[in-house]
């Protein structure tokens, strides 16, 4: 009884800390740079993400949230997975922009695998081409809200262990 109370208190404390201090890292897996410019605009003093505790980190080892833009190209696929695997648990992925959601206008191209959720488990989707900074903040806020009261996970990653288990060619055919 006493241990379960202690557990619930520490679990609550951990969730509180995670919700209030999401450090982000930004990765461009083949975007046209439109979404990246919007992400940079989100980080400017005008929107001041530091009031929510959001900080852009240089190193994936320090980050909790991976903000991805653009469709996953075959060139960026391995790098994206590598960045994701360098992040310590618990980690979350936010897909920003139409292309990151589904491949967008690049869908079906010979060098494009598809949206981010073809290779990584995505926790929040932010649509738009490009999404406004307000939309990106809203997406991150929704992700944080889902941390404090977890519901069913929305995304269905390509497989539990991404990377080599699902050859890129097959994934691309599934998308088509």
């Amino acid at each position, binding site marked *: 009884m006493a241990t379960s109370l202690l557990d619930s208190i520490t679990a609550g404390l951990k969730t509180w*800390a995670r919700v*209030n201090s999401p450090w982000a890292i930004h990765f461009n897996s083949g975007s046209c740079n439109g979404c990246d410019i919007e992400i940079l605009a989100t980080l400017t003093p005008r929107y001041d993400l530091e*009031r929510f505790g959001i900080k852009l980190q240089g*190193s994936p080892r320090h980050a909790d949230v991976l903000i991805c833009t653009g469709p996953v190209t075959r060139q960026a696929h391995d790098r994206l997975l590598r960045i994701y695997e360098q992040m310590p648990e618990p980690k979350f992925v936010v897909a920003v922009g139409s292309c990151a959601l589904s491949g967008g206008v690049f869908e079906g191209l010979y060098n494009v695998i598809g949206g981010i959720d073809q290779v990584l488990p995505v926790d929040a989707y932010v649509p738009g081409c490009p999404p406004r900074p307000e939309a990106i903040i809203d997406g991150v806020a929704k992700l944080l809200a889902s941390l404090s009261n977890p519901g069913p996970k929305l995304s269905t990653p390509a497989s539990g262990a991404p990377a080599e288990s699902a050859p890129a060619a097959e994934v691309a055919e599934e998308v088509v």
Partner: protein
Amino acid sequence: MSEIFALLIFPSGLFLLGLGMAYEWVDRKLLARFQNRIGPRWFQPLADNIKLLAKEEVVPDGVNRLLFIGLPVVALAGALTAALYVPAFGLPPAYSFPGDLIVTIYLLSLMTLCIGLAGANTISRFSLIGATRTLTQLFSYEAPFMLTMLGPAIVARTWQIGAINEFAGAGNWLLLTQPIGFIVALIGLMGKLEMPPFDAPEAETEIVAGALTEYSGRGLALFHLGKGVELVVGVTLIGAFYLGGIANPLEFLIKTGALMLFIVGVQALMARMRIEQTVGLWWRYGSLLVLAQLLLLLIWETIV
């Protein structure tokens, strides 16, 4: 029993960790206000550190495991031990002996040394460059910073921090008689803490996160906490030596607050310096000016 209380809860230990996080918040909030932002909420450093402590710690390939895990602990322990000898929060030092100033200065540089070793321990190239820059910076600011601590000690004719604090509290505002020492000490403290404009060792835009690139979770949290504690110890030392002593909590808050305003002002005002500019600033100007001032002090002390 009272020793354990003094070590673990007050004035060292938990209380000092809290104070360190509070000063980190003051630093970030003031910087945000200077940049016309709203800035972080008051519990932000606490949330950051709890989150980091609860995170997975990745031990990368090619590192010495013992050093990788041990160095953050040593760094934090060094900063916390240094706090025992300074009048933190305006109370007399918890421990004191003749010559504790030297020990405190060495304990304060332990942190930088640990960060340098931590960076050199990993095989990541960003860590290595960060470690090189950290140690280069250590060798440049350490001499002038030590010389600035020497000035008040010579005037007060003691090596004991508590005694220098009392000497300064007896109406001797060394800021007026040793202005160069005061400025160099503050700038040296900023270099010690790798604050902008001296943040070349952890420049995000060039070398990812410097020496701490490979650290995640617990190790990073301990280094963060250690930096907060070192900030408190540093401003306490400078406030006690140069701003007329720190005798009670109110004086502590006012004087360290004024120092924080100055430090954050410089941070907001200046762009990052390249590493050779940093070294040049301290060796060409900082050290020489402080040495000249020290010479004058020595002559004055022998005449009077």
